[in-house]
C-alpha cells in the first residue's frame, strides 16, 4: 500500500456512471437489470430494460461455466464475452465487478474488433463513446489504412503495367543475353527487304539442341541454364558481330549470317558450331553432353525472300538433320521449290 489508497466506497450516480462508462450495466444480486449506460441502451433497442433478467438479455459466450448469476462473483475482474439477444445480436466484451453493500454487480462492456460494424449497425457517433475511449481512433486508423493501401495498390498496378510494357519491348533473352524472337523477327524482316532489293544476301540457320532435355532431366535446370549460356558463347564465337543470334525457344536458336551465299561455306560453319557444341560442358564436375541439329536456307534461293517461308524451309532442313541421326547440318534443297514463286495476288 502506498498509504494514499482510500478504502471508502465512491458514491456515483447512474448518469455520471453512464458518462464514464456509456456501456455499463448494473445488475442486482438476483440478476435483474437495475440501470443501463446510454450507448448500451441504444444497442438494446426498444422494449423494457430495467427489471429484465440479465440472462434474458445476454447470452454468456465466455466463460462457458457462467450459467447463473450466483457464479458471477467467481468471475469478477475476468474478461467475459456476451452476445446481445436483442437488436443485431452484437457480441461484446467486458468485465464484471461486484459493488459494495450487496448492491449487485457492474458489468462494463465494449465493442471488440467488430466495432466498425457496430458503428454502422447502430449509427453511433462520437458522443456515444467516452472521451477516454480510443474507438474513434481505431475507426480513423481503419479508414487511413484503407486509403494508404489504396495508394499502394495503385502504385503496384502502375509498376506492374510498367514492368509488362518494358518486358513487351525487351529484345533480349534474359538468360543468354542473345536476342529474343522479337529481336530476330525485326532483323529478319529488314534482311529480307534488303535481299529483295538486291542489297545483301544472307543465310538463315535454325539450331535445335540435341539431348538437352536429358541434361535438364538428369542434372536439373541449373545445369540446363549453364548449357544454354555455353551454347550462346559458342554461337557468338563462331559468328561475326554483324550477324544476328537469337534464342527463340527453350533450346532453339536462330542465326542470321549476313553476306552468305555459298551453301557449302554455310554448311562448314554449321558443322563447326556442332563440333563445338559437342565438347562436354562441366556442371559441378559432371559432364553435360549435347549436340545440335542445324537446318539452313539461303536468301538467294528466293526471288522475294519471305521470313515465314524461310523459317519453314529452314525447319524442314532441321528435321532432315534430325532424321538423319542428329548432330549434323543440312542445307535446304533450293530446287525443291519453284525458283520464282508467284507472289500471291
Amino acid at each position: 500500500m502506498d498509504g494514499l489508497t482510500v478504502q471508502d466506497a465512491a458514491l456515483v450516480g447512474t448518469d455520471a456512471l453512464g458518462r464514464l462508462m456509456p456501456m455499463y450495466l448494473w445488475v442486482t444480486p438476483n440478476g435483474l437489470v437495475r440501470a443501463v449506460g446510454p450507448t448500451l441502451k441504444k444497442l438494446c433497442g426498444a422494449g423494457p430494460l430495467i427489471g429484465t433478467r440479465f440472462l434474458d438479455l445476454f447470452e454468456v459466450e465466455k466463460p462457458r461455466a457462467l450459467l447463473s448469476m450466483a457464479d458471477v462473483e467467481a468471475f469478477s475482474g475476468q474478461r467475459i464475452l456476451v452476445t446481445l439477444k436483442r437488436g443485431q445480436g452484437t457480441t461484446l466484451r467486458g468485465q464484471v465487478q461486484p459493488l459494495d453493500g450487496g448492491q449487485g454487480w457492474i458489468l462494463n462492456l465494449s465493442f471488440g474488433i467488430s466495432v466498425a460494424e457496430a458503428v454502422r449497425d447502430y449509427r453511433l457517433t462520437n458522443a456515444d463513446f467516452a472521451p477516454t475511449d480510443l474507438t474513434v481512433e481505431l475507426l480513423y486508423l481503419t479508414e487511413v489504412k484503407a486509403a494508404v493501401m489504396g495508394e499502394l495498390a495503385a502504385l503496384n498496378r502502375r509498376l506492374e503495367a510498367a514492368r509488362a510494357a518494358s518486358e513487351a519491348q525487351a529484345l533480349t533473352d534474359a538468360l543468354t543475353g542473345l536476342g529474343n524472337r522479337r529481336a530476330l523477327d525485326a532483323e529478319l524482316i529488314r534482311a529480307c527487304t534488303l535481299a529483295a532489293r538486291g542489297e545483301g544476301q544472307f543465310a538463315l540457320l535454325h539450331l535445335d539442341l540435341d539431348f538437352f532435355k536429358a541434361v535438364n532431366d538428369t542434372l536439373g535446370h541449373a545445369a540446363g541454364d549453364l548449357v544454354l549460356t555455353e551454347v550462346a558463347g559458342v554461337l557468338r564465337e563462331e559468328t561475326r558481330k554483324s550477324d544476328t543470334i537469337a534464342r527463340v525457344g527453350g533450346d532453339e536458336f536462330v542465326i542470321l549470317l549476313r553476306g552468305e551465299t555459298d551453301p557449302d561455306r554455310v554448311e562448314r560453319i554449321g558443322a563447326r558450331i556442332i563440333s563445338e557444341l559437342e565438347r562436354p560442358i562441366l556442371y559441378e564436375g559432371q559432364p553435360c553432353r549435347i549436340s545440335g541439329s542445324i537446318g539452313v536456307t539461303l536468301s538467294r534461293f528466293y526471288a522475294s525472300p519471305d521470313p515465314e517461308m524461310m523459317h519453314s524451309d529452314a525447319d524442314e532442313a532441321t528435321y532432315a538433320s534430325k532424321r538423319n541421326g542428329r548432330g549434323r547440318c543440312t542445307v535446304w534443297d533450293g530446287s525443291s521449290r519453284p525458283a520464282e514463286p508467284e507472289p500471291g495476288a
Partner: protein
Amino acid sequence: MHGLINRSLQGFLRDTYGPALWSRIAEAAGVGAEGFEAMLTYEDDLTDRVIEAAADALAKPREALLEDLGIYLVSLEPLRRLLRFGGVDYVDFLQTVDELPERARLAVADIGLPDLILDAPEPDQFTLHFAAGHPGFAPVFAGILRAMADDYGAFALVDLDGERKVKVELLQTAYASGRAFDLARPEDA
C-alpha cells in the same frame, strides 16, 4: 517532401487547371512524365520548383495558391472524412487541430508534417503556430481550416499571419447546417 504531399499538389493542379497546364508546370519544374509517386520521398527543392512554376503559370501569389490547395484537399471525400474524425463540431475540431500532425504520422510515419502549437487566448480566437518545417504548410492549413469551417457549418475568419502563423476568429459556431459525417464508412453502409 513526402510523395503524398507532392501528389496532392499534382492532383490539385491537374484537377483544377487541367492536365495540359499540369504538364507544362511539371516540365518547367523538372518532374518526370509520370508525375509524383505517392509512396516515395522527393527533395524539397522539387516541390518548391513546382509551387513556383504553378504560381508563375497562374499569375497567382504563392500563398493564395497554397490556400487553394488546402481547400482542394478538403474537397476530397476520404480526406474530409479523416479530418472530421478530429471533432464533433468546429470548435472541437480546432481544439484538437494540433493533434493533426500526430494523426498523420499514425497513418504514414514519414509524412513529415511540422508540429503545431495551438494558442486559444479567447474562446473564439485560435492561433496556430508552425514551429518549424517548410513555410508552405501554414497557407495550406489556412485553406484547410477555412474549408473545414464550411464543412462543419461554422462561420469563421481564417487568415495567414506571417509565414508560420494562422489565425482563426470564430464568429458563429452554427451558421449553416454543414455537411453530414457518419462515423461508419459510407461504402460499408
